[in-house]
């Protein structure tokens, strides 16, 4: 079998901020609500707490983000998805839930640099100054859905895989040298 390839195969751009396409990352959509064993399932899958509303729990290269009242996004190394799915299945058993591998359905970008937030300010209708440090923000970048959060001094942004080229185009346009907002 071939190695998995991300949508843009690690494209990068250097402007007033640096844009890097990263991945592929392992991602699982977990849909469940008010289950006693949910905390255990998330812990078993990625080793984090269950995030509060609009928050993301990050632990090394694993994370769990709150996506909606009954949806979580689990992030982990690409090769460990099957194990994690099995762990979730074991923890939740027959309780009503849905856990699916969406690793290949996404594109992930890093936006880095002192003015990284300005790249997002140009694309997302989000009050970035009021973004909490552990906040996962579901929004849009221009015309497509994205989610992002602050991490390691920059931002991690997730889009759908099919629009990875568009997302990279947006980020590149917005990070042109000399165009930071302040």
């Amino acid at each position: 079998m071939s190695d998995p390839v991300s949508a843009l195969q690690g494209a990068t751009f250097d402007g007033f901020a640096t844009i890097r396409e990263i991945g592929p990352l392992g991602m699982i959509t977990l849909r469940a609500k008010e289950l006693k064993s949910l905390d255990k399932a998330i812990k078993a899958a990625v080793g984090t707490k269950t995030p509060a509303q609009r928050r993301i729990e990050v632990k090394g290269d694993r994370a769990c983000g709150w996506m909606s009242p009954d949806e979580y996004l689990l992030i982990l190394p690409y090769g460990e998805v099957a194990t994690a799915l099995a762990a979730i299945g074991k923890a939740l058993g027959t309780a009503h839930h849905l856990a699916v591998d969406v690793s290949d359905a996404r594109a992930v970008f890093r936006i880095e640099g002192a003015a990284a937030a300005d790249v997002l300010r140009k694309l997302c209708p989000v009050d970035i100054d009021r973004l909490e440090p552990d906040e996962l923000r579901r929004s849009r970048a221009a015309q497509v859905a994205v989610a992002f959060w602050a991490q390691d001094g920059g931002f991690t942004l997730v889009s759908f895989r099919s629009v990875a080229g568009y997302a990279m185009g947006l980020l590149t346009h917005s990070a042109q040298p000399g165009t930071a907002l302040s």
Partner: protein
Amino acid sequence: MSTRLSKGGRLIDRTAPAEFTFNGKHMRGFQGDTLASALLANDQMLVGRSFKYHRPRGIVASGPEEPNALVNLGTGARLEPNQRATTTELFDGLEAASQNHWPSLEFDVGVVNNYAARFLPAGFYYKTFIHPRPFWKHVFEPIIRRSAGLGKAPTTGDADRYEQAYAFCDVLVVGAGVAGLLAAQSAADAGSRVILLEQAPSLGGRSPVDETSVQGQPVDDWLAAVEADLAARDTVTIRTRTCAFGVYDHGYVLADERVADHTPGDGRPKHRLWRIRAGRIITATGAIERPLSFAGNDIPGVMLAGAVRDYVVNHAVSPGDRTVIVTNNDSAYLTALALKAAGLDVPAILDAREAATGALPEAARAAGIRVLTGKAIASVHGTKRVTGVAICAQAGEGAVQEEIACEAVAMSGGWSPVVHLFSHCGGKLLWDDGISAFIPDPARPPLHHDGTAMVEVVGAAAGLLDLGAILQGVVSTGISARAQTKGRRKQAAIEAVKTSVSIPPVWVMPQGAPIALRSKMWLDYQNDVKVSDVQLAAREGYQSVEHTKRYTTLGMATDQGKLSNINGLGVLAEALGEEIPQVGTTTFRPPYTPVTIGTLAGEARGEIFQPLRRTPMHASHETSGAYFEPVGLWRRPYCFPRAGETHDQAVHREVLNTRQNLGLLDASTLGKIIVKGPDAGRFLDMLYTGVMSTLPIGKCRYGLMCNEQGFLSDDGVVARLAEDTWLCHTTSGGADRIHGWMEDWLQCEWWDWQVYTANVTEQYAQIAVVGPNARKLLQVLGGMDVSKETLPFMQWADGTLGGFPARVYRISFSGELSYEIAIPASHGAAFWAACIEAGKALGAMPYGTEALHVMRAEKGFIMIGDETDGTVIPQDLGLDWAISKKKADYLGKRGQERSFLANPDRWKLVGFETLDGSVIPDGAYVVAQGTNANGQRNVQGRVTSTYYSPTLKRGIAMGLLNHGPTRMDEVVEFNTVLGGTVRARVRDTVFYDKDGEKQNV
């Protein structure tokens, strides 16, 4: 002549000259000039021709209210028409050209309209061109459109970049004059996050020109101190060159930042659109000076008094050696004093008032300037520039008492507060008799969701025209203290602040002017509307100001009546014998000043005009030379033409090869939605017309989805993955819509059903392996048993193929032996390459969407969007077999029972084959006898899919026909685009392999 003074000019940098051209003529200015000030410094008083009469026009104003000095700026890919010289910052290398003249600015043929002015009164076009009716569209309009118009439209793409940005604040202050600066400061003091926007490059508004001191400090020191204070606060953001042009509900404000207008080609975006969400908005937008309506008030050299002193003080530009001032208020005396201070001559100040006794008139008299009260201008001498004025009594009819030679006239008809932003969202205005202007009514501001004021107004924009009142107003409206100030308290506070300025109404000068003078008094410079036009409209019965505006075009030009509206209202009210508040004002709508389209488009152009969805194999298709077509936002290969092949030839080859050997289709765009839960079966039974709950694990079933009205909405194959899990395939364009449709029902209607869905469309690359050699290819790849016995038609299996994890569906949309293989998207491109490579020996060729369409039409399979158009129910398409008769309900069932949908007279799907083998044109109708009430041919059906079938070597078609299935072998006629008809025989819809033997091997 206008010229540069040897000294002064607070904004210009004499050490930084800037060369520019105007109509090809080389000129020099300085950094800090506007294009307007630089033109005046080069004695270019004539800058354009008017729209209708092509009269010579000069610079009137010094800000965004300028109606005349509109130029074509730049050339080629940087050409921008209708740019205001007064707000265009000069830069070295600027190229400008005047507009609206032919053949040249100096000699314009269109000026004959001027002499024919009496034949072009208000409403001329409406009156003249209404008969004969068809002439308007075919004769008059094209000619008028060609002769009208301002600047040239660019013919090439825009070389510049644009972008947008979002911002959020507690308090947005618009305008950085004294009032705006103080408001921003006190809002920041109160702990608010503040954004302060200023349209000019520098702060201060009119204060550096009009004031000597503010709060006891010299004005420049005061400004520097406030600016430094604001800059030091990290809660305050100041953006200059940024014009807030629209206020919308919920504190949403749009602003246009001119980032690189003055530094073209430096790589920065030319403009940036700010999309600001503000807790509340304070407008400190100042006031705009009004012209006076006297005969010849449009001759180059007649300028607003405030603009004249702006040019003198800011840019050291003299409008001429001798400037006559004409006014109805004190502020124009500042101009006289400024001119005098610059060493220029002011032969007279003509004050329309009977007495002028304030401090400024006294100062003028003390400076030795001749002040004539009760006087007016009877007419201005000159054509392309002012040579003198004739003086008369304001109270009279224009009998000339004296003539004065001069080069310029500085006029002031009072000041109109800029109430636009206050009004955009419904703020109401009051008429203020004291200053003869509309002011914002603080008791009726535009409101937030909670009933509090969304917009507050301070400074001259609130009608406070003197510094004392402005300072007092900002403090007493309690900007700093306000959290929940109630309207009443605020109104009381504002009423306590009174401006000491008084401006009597002077709408026509002299007040008894005869028609000969009134038809030379311009109200709207850009649209050439005169006092006589508005009076004519009133005589012709136009009472509503909105009707008069449209009839005369007053205020409808690109300046949106910033100079003309109030004067026009005054004239209309007098003509109607009513008060101005009764006549009312026209509606203020965004944008406040014109915004270039590129700013609104922002980043959305070129490659990122819209999101383009690519499958994991997209790059490979591009390398293969695929010709793409849009499918929703996806790009899918339409066909894979080889060297020398037309697209038709490529499609025919792909169809035949797939039928004879092996075809490969990128089907990744197909929607894939997982539906799981104890109630998932019941849920799908409601969504689909058929039964999905009984589908055994491991099997596939074709299903139809309808909307509540019963119309067919989507179709696809459903696979049962586990006891409580199904996978629903949707159409390529339908995945997001159907996923949303499912969630809508689950979240809003059947919220107690235990079902979860997940859209996994993009998780998988999906490849259709189609044709007699399909199984052989999979066997070559190896890894799982895909034999007829293990994996029969309409079943699926998980396994590996060529080392790739694969889910294989044995389904067919072509009628051939066919497998659809889902692979994780990250391996999609590699698997596609593996199939191409392994397929070489088996005659594999990729095929595109058109071959897919042809093959499915040969088999009589319907296509959502071809056979359906939102008015078609499954029964129309003969799909009754896919509709469960046993189920109590499904979405659309009741809709389909309505009388029109249950009517046996509906058009129903049949096949057609032309008698001569030709292809029926797309969209053709089956004609019937006679014509309808509109004289159109009656029809009895239409084609829905029509193709040349390379397999059958003839045209084939499906279509809807009245009572179709009962009319087999009947010959009907289709109309064609070129006229005439095509005869076709009605037949069943399956043209190829009716028994389905080929797919079931």
